């Protein structure tokens, strides 16, 4: 209508100029990126010669970070969809115990045990979601109930069936199983052998394995973590469903009125979170060979912490999977770094708390700049 519409959409006198560089910086992941740089700088300066950055040391914190990443991806998407899940930790214990019961006590082939476990756990995730969506209760409460219920079952089942709360022998049962290898093995063993022969990474010089490379492959856990991060990131930012996730978390009422199937989105995200927890659990039992009733305690908090450090909003509708992955990396590096740096270990929790606080304050300020809140 008229020439008014031509009024310079590109040049607006009401907007201060921002350099493209600064604009490129302003993204939800920024907090995570800054944090990662800070953390690495810190440990490179203060713990460089502690073995933290030897090939073995790198593998050490990578594995811990990968663990956090696996559950953080699920927690991140769920949090963006506006809910969270306190039953992740209990789900980890429960899933591990199911695999052990099916695969060891009941003697099923490992692939069957794993598949049935996935089916059961994802169904429980769906149940969680269904209750939340159906009753409109806060997910805090519903999943808190499941935290207790699943942990109770994880203690009760093996106790009744096997008369103990640790079931071992899973590694033997999984020997040669095709699906088990997807969770428990290592890849690229040959590459590391070659690197060791070429003198690029160290070899053991004492003990039973003298002569072997100190790092003999990349654990499947790390592969899973990277795969889940890529999947989550593409889903969230590049698909229609990703837009629905943001919408469901941002304002469920508005999203529903606009035709987004909010209930379906939320239930699917609960299922995905349960899936990630199960991946975590199965990688763990495959590596350690046993399932215990105390596995996964407090993991729900660690997942939430990683996600929040990574810049997501606890109230939903805002966040990024890459950020969550960086949050997990920061969390893992800090945790292991403190041990490499020989910090009094009972102070570990104090540091954890302080870093968490610092990271979220940094993030909030970054988000405020993005949305121009102030």
């Amino acid at each position: 209508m008229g020439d008014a519409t031509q009024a310079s959409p590109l040049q607006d006198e009401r907007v201060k100029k921002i350099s493209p560089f600064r604009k490129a910086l302003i993204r939800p992941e920024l907090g995570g990126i800054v944090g990662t740089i800070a953390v690495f700088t810190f440990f490179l300066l203060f713990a460089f010669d502690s073995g933290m950055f030897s090939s073995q040391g790198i593998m050490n914190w990578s594995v811990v970070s990968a663990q956090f990443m696996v559950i953080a991806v699920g927690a991140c998407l769920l949090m963006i969809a506006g809910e969270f899940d306190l039953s992740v930790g209990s789900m980890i214990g429960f899933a591990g115990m199911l695999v052990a019961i099916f695969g060891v006590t009941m003697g099923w082939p490992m692939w069957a045990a794993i598949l049935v476990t996935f089916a059961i756990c994802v169904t429980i995730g769906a149940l969680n979601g269904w209750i939340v969506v159906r009753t409109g209760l806060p997910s805090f409460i519903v999943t808190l109930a499941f935290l207790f219920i699943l942990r109770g079952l994880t203690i009760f089942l093996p106790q009744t069936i096997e008369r103990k709360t640790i079931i071992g022998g899973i590694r033997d049962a999984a020997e040669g199983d095709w699906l088990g290898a997807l969770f428990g093995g290592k890849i690229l063993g040959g590459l590391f052998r070659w690197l060791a022969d070429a003198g690029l990474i160290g070899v053991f010089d004492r003990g039973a394995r003298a002569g072997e490379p100190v790092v003999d492959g990349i654990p499947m856990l790390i592969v899973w973590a990277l795969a889940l991060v890529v999947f989550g990131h593409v889903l969230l930012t590049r698909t229609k469903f990703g837009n629905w996730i943001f919408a469901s978390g941002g304002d469920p009422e508005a999203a529903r009125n606009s035709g987004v199937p909010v209930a379906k989105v939320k239930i699917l995200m609960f299922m995905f979170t349960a899936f990630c927890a199960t991946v975590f659990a199965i990688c763990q039992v495959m590596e350690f060979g046993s399932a215990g009733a105390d596995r996964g305690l407090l993991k729900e908090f660690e997942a939430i912490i990683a996600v929040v450090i990574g810049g997501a909003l606890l109230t939903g509708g805002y966040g990024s999977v890459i950020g969550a992955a960086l949050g997990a990396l920061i969390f893992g590096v800090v945790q292991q770094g403190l041990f490499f740096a020989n910090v009094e270990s009972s102070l570990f929790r104090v540091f954890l708390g302080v870093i968490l606080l610092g990271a979220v304050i940094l993030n909030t300020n970054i988000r405020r700049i993005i949305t121009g809140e102030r």
Partner: protein
Amino acid sequence: DGEKYVLVSHAPDSDSWWNTIKNAIALAGEQMGVEVEYRNPPTGDIADMARIIEQAAASGPNGIITTLADYDVLQQPIKDAVASGVDVIIMNTGTGEQARELGALMYIGQPEYDAGLAAGQRAKDDGIGSFLCVNHAIQQPTLAQRCQGFADGLGIELGSSMLDSGIDPAEIKNRVMAYLSANPDTQAILTLGPISADPTLLALEENGMAGDIYFGTFDLGDEIVKGIKSGVIKWGIDQQPFLQGYLPVVFMTNYHRYGVLPGNNVNAGPGFVTAENLDLIEEFAGEYR
């Protein structure tokens, strides 16, 4: 017949060491024809445990078998229970002297500090001068006492050699590796039970120190037994939890039925399990051993 006993422990829900005790009291209950219940504070909070003892006393059993994880906290409820006519046997943690002060019938168990001390002395004889204690439940005083005893047995300061490892196996494993790579001259490792021993075994295997470093542990389990057999673990301290669960039930039943009771306290441990004396142990590790 049909006497009712309650066993109260201080362990959190998922502590697998207590399985043996649960199995032992089930067996003893069956053999003696009595009913034995197991109770514990879900998070291991000793103040909650005191409430459970009070509750157990109020439910009017014939006897209570309890640990004495914190003398200060538990003395009053135990005294009250004794005063209201319930017989009490102290098991696992505590000392015979404390048991007597509270008016309990007897004490069956292994004083934690003494066990640690004995282990420390043994290690000192083997020429150890520095160690790492992997504590998976740092907030539980009884476990820290084991580390303290070990340090005292070696005659060194505990200092920062006690590692707060948490209970996640991957984290325990990687923290142990991180500690060892930051302190490569550590001579010995002490773990406090299967929860910390199993991942530590993997850690040592992965960083190549398995068999090289002096490794001792408390309590037994599948993996620990394998470790002792293969020589990675020098010794395991067996405090024979089976006896700690089984004997109080048997003693108490016989006391109630025939008025007989041993004149002394029973020290169920410490017994050192080494590669030489593993046979039955292997079969029943984690279940009755």
